[in-house]
């Protein structure tokens, strides 16, 4: 490869969607880039500052009230949508993901908070979740089981051709056990953590796409503290998940045996 140019990472409006650690994904991406011998510059966009031409966009947070405002900012110019069409990489977490859909809908399916309309889904009210999650691996992206936490009460109503990003082993997704959306170079997920801080392999996928590679082309790196911490935590969360399942099963059995009596 020729000496790589500096990648621009734009962190978009973290305050509008109440980023909860998600803005640290910029730092985590820069850290991983260094291990891949890539130069990264992270810029944060607030308020009326125009969205820059960037190679990677990061957006997200847990504040769903900010979704329409974020969608409005993303569509204030065509820069964002043009760049996405040209193959720029996007990581959209939780409220950031909802801003990329058609919008937030009420019980009757009417849009009450319009989104950007980039992806084929709407967001409706779902069950309230606040828990740790562990995903299944995603072999085609070279991803191991990922870890993070979710906190929301939304569900996706997605078009049939909309692919999820993850299937969860522990915790609840936004479409049953499915989490988020993957479309081209756009990754949408409910996982906070920050996701790139706890799961550097996702940063690898994004850095691969941003430099015209396939994720599998990266030399595997020896696991660092991030991978070790994530794996330890995943073990803990799996064990806790098993305890909850066992308890539920025992309650169900007891109920059945009581009914028989």
């Amino acid at each position: 490869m020729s000496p790589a140019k500096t990648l621009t990472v734009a962190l978009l409006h973290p305050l509008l969607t109440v980023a909860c650690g998600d803005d640290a994904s910029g730092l985590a991406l820069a850290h991983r880039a260094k291990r891949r011998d890539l130069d990264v510059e992270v810029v944060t966009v607030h308020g009326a500052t125009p969205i820059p031409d960037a190679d990677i966009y990061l957006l997200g947070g847990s504040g769903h009230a900010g979704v329409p405002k974020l969608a409005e900012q993303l569509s204030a110019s065509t820069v964002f949508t043009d760049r996405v069409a040209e193959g720029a990489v996007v990581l959209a977490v939780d409220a950031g993901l909802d801003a990329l859909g058609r919008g937030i809908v009420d019980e009757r399916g009417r849009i009450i908070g319009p989104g950007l309309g980039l992806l084929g889904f709407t967001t409706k009210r779902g069950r309230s979740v606040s828990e740790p999650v562990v995903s299944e691996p995603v072999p085609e992206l070279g991803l191991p089981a990922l870890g993070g936490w979710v906190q929301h009460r939304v569900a996706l109503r997605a078009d049939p051709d909309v692919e999820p990003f993850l299937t969860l082993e522990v915790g609840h997704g936004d479409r049953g056990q499915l989490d988020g959306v993957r479309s081209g170079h756009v990754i949408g997920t409910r996982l906070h953590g920050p996701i790139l801080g706890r799961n550097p392999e996702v940063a690898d996928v994004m850095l691969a796409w941003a430099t015209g590679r396939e994720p599998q082309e990266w030399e595997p790196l020896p696991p660092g503290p991030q991978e070790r911490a994530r794996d330890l935590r995943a073990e803990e969360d799996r064990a806790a998940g098993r305890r909850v399942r066992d308890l539920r099963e025992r309650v169900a059995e007891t109920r059945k045996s009581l009914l028989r009596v």
Partner: protein
Amino acid sequence: MRESTVSGPHVTAAPTLRERAAMALADTASLASRMLGKGKGEIIGGRYALRVAPTLLEKMASGRTSVLVTGTNGKSTVTALVAAALSPAGPIASNRTGANMPDGIVTSLKEDRTSAIAAIEVDEAYLRPVVASTHPRALIALNLSREYTRGVSLARTIDHWQSAASLLTSDTTAIVNTDDPWVQYAFEKAPDICAVAGGLNWTADVTICPACQTLLNGVGEQWSCPGCGREQIKPVWSASDGERVSDLLQEVIVSGPGHNLTVLTSVPGRTAAASVAFALAAADTVGVNLDEAASAIESVLDVDGRYAPFDVDGRRARIIMLKNPAGWTEAIDTALRSDLPIVIYAQPFGPRDTTTIWEVEWERLSDRNVVVSGQRAPDVVACLDAHGISTTIVEDPLDAIRTQPVGDVLVACNYSGFRQLTARLRGLGAIA
């Protein structure tokens, strides 16, 4: 500080039969909780009492001059300083244990019905019901920053504070940190505002205008909004650091309307000066002689086991509890400013327990090796490594402290780490 006495005539109005029943139930529930070894029992007792008699908090606050203290960071410290600053005027009722939701507050007030003055720490998400019940003489709003222990967004807290502010009459002075644009915004409609330059340690959350989302000018100095024209209310109280008298004592210089006071405090960190200013502003509002208030403040050495150092084989360790990025930033400041070694102790408390530390500028400690302890040490190490900081894990927190040279050590704990470490040290008799 004069200790509150439980004897003497009650200042609160006589409780109704129902309220008396609720109080008896609370005592029973608290006793049961203590006997089962479930803690001090003030929360569970208060919860049952308020369920039986929702009017009990109002009754227990009646007849008193109350000062409320709310915010994300520093509530316990400022409440302790306020209690001290008001003590020249008589005995003070206060929720010193830090149980700061209505159930904990009602228990504290119920246990001391003779003190005519109350200094009450209030959880930022319960401000409205406590304002409605206590009709405070003053309300101190310190700061706002994100934290994820409960997952409440800043926007929701602002809404809640605005609705609390709408209950205020001119009988209440809102003592507001106007350095923080979001705090000022929440209280801008309060009829009587006393502006304090309370500092802004964590600017990341408040760079846009809460009213119109425009990027603010001059955040951290004299802020203003080019979008809607809002600007900082000029503070009438301000404070700065004076001389550092010893390892433990810092001089702070506070100026208010007609006053310039120099106060010694053992409260650490750069928020110390502002905390003293808030306490003196409250004392001034209530009408306490400020020289007496200042000397009473100097007697505060320890807040809930936080500031008094404990000895570990010659290391004088100060334990601090950090719940959000603003708190961690403050800890880094203190470590850098006083050139103290820092040991981190992080224990589990839910899925978000190590998220906040990711947002802190650990880079500022770049030339140090940080010793990390606790079950969440791997997560802390992962975060610090991503920030370019080298670390060593030592399993036991006391052993972690022993790795440091003899002298002062800052022990930065997350919420559960703090609880567990202070409980252990109390068990060992190392702290009161």
